[in-house]
């Protein structure tokens, strides 16, 4: 049992060691070699010489999950692959993160009507950073990894329980992933159902138990003129309607 896990809420020891461990973990993220489809090719060209992942310490693609920290889900996750992906995620040592790269990993992407496509990796495993694009440019993936690094900086070891994958039950072994049940809902569309198959409530999405404090990733680079308009509106907003201000803060 880790020494740090003995405490149950953050105190002087854990917060100070957080800074050291997070700094170390942030700068040596080893991605798992988990290329699924076209996004894998963009992930490879991100790892190659032209736009290099090695500058962020993330260049070494670990072949086995035992040495990996980040699982970059790059490509379409099919229903057959969901169980395997969960097993890989389970077999990665703590602390681990997941980047959903590409529209298919985020929400099924162009294959939304697919009968054997999982509508997004976050239906079965908790995802930390979403990199949009189909396929996202190498620079977008690098920005995703920088966003993950910002998130790791603010992470806390105690007091926050990372949500468990959907297919894993209490003592940690994987429940059978029957596509029959997932596919009956077919593809989120209002599809005509073959006779005799009942509608199935969405059981395979893990309940997100709150995001860790401070994990709101900032917006990143915005074009200068858009930034002026934002500042102007926020200025007007502050003087105008007060409650909309709280609305934003409270979210």
């Amino acid at each position, binding site marked *: 049992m880790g020494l740090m896990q003995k405490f149950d809420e953050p105190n002087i020891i854990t917060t100070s060691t957080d800074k050291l461990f997070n700094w170390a973990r942030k700068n040596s993220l080893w991605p798992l070699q988990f290329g699924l489809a076209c996004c894998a090719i963009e992930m490879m060209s991100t790892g190659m010489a032209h736009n290099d992942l090695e500058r962020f310490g993330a260049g070494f693609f670990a072949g086995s999950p035992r040495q990996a920290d980040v699982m970059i889900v790059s490509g379409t996750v099919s229903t057959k692959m969901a169980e395997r992906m969960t097993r890989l995620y389970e077999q990665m040592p703590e602390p681990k993160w997941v980047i959903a790269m590409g529209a298919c990993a985020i929400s099924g992407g162009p294959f939304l009507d697919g009968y054997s496509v999982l509508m997004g990796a976050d239906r079965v495993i908790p995802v930390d950073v979403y990199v949009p694009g189909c396929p996202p440019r190498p620079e977008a993936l690098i920005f995703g990894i920088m966003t993950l690094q910002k998130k790791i900086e603010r992470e806390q070891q105690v007091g926050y329980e990372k949500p468990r994958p959907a297919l894993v039950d209490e003592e940690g072994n994987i429940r059978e992933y029957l596509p*029959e049940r997932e596919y009956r809902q077919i593809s989120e*569309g209002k599809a*005509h159902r073959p006779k005799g198959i009942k509608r199935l409530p969405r059981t395979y999405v893990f309940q997100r138990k709150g995001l860790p404090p401070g994990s709101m990733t900032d917006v990143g680079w915005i074009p200068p003129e858009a930034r002026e308009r934002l500042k102007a509106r926020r200025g007007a907003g502050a003087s105008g309607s007060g409650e909309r201000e709280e609305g934003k803060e409270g979210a």
Partner: protein
Amino acid sequence: MAVALPEGSLEERLERYLEGFRSRHGLEEARVEGNTVVLGVDPGSVPAVLSTARQSLGILHLSFITVVDRQGSFELTYELLDMRGARVRVKTVLQGEESVIDTVTGIYPTANWHEREAYDMFGVAFRGHPDLRRVYMWQDHFDHHPLLKSFEISTKRTFEGLR
């Protein structure tokens, strides 16, 4: 050691194929379109036609097998290439419920996975196939054949909806 491809110009070969098929199987709807000999064949004699194509006429390459679900009957298309510009298209129609046809893996071994895919997607069974299993979908939990028209996935998108 080298493989002998059929000689002669395109027209000669097309005529030779047409004669070859007509003489052996007396097919009435056999015609030449462009660089293709199109044959309408009943399901039982598909292996016979393909073996004449392979052995006597020297057409060596089976490009693909397409299955089209005509809501009640399956329409199979075997596309054969002689690797020198001519094509032979064998079309059959499987009527009604019994969607079973003889396999051609004996003649064209490459048809192995084509037939497995046709079985997986449409449920067309091939009699005599070495290991007729599903190629893409789950082996046991999935008792549907996805590409059938009865297996709908989502609303059809047409131009009306678009601008």
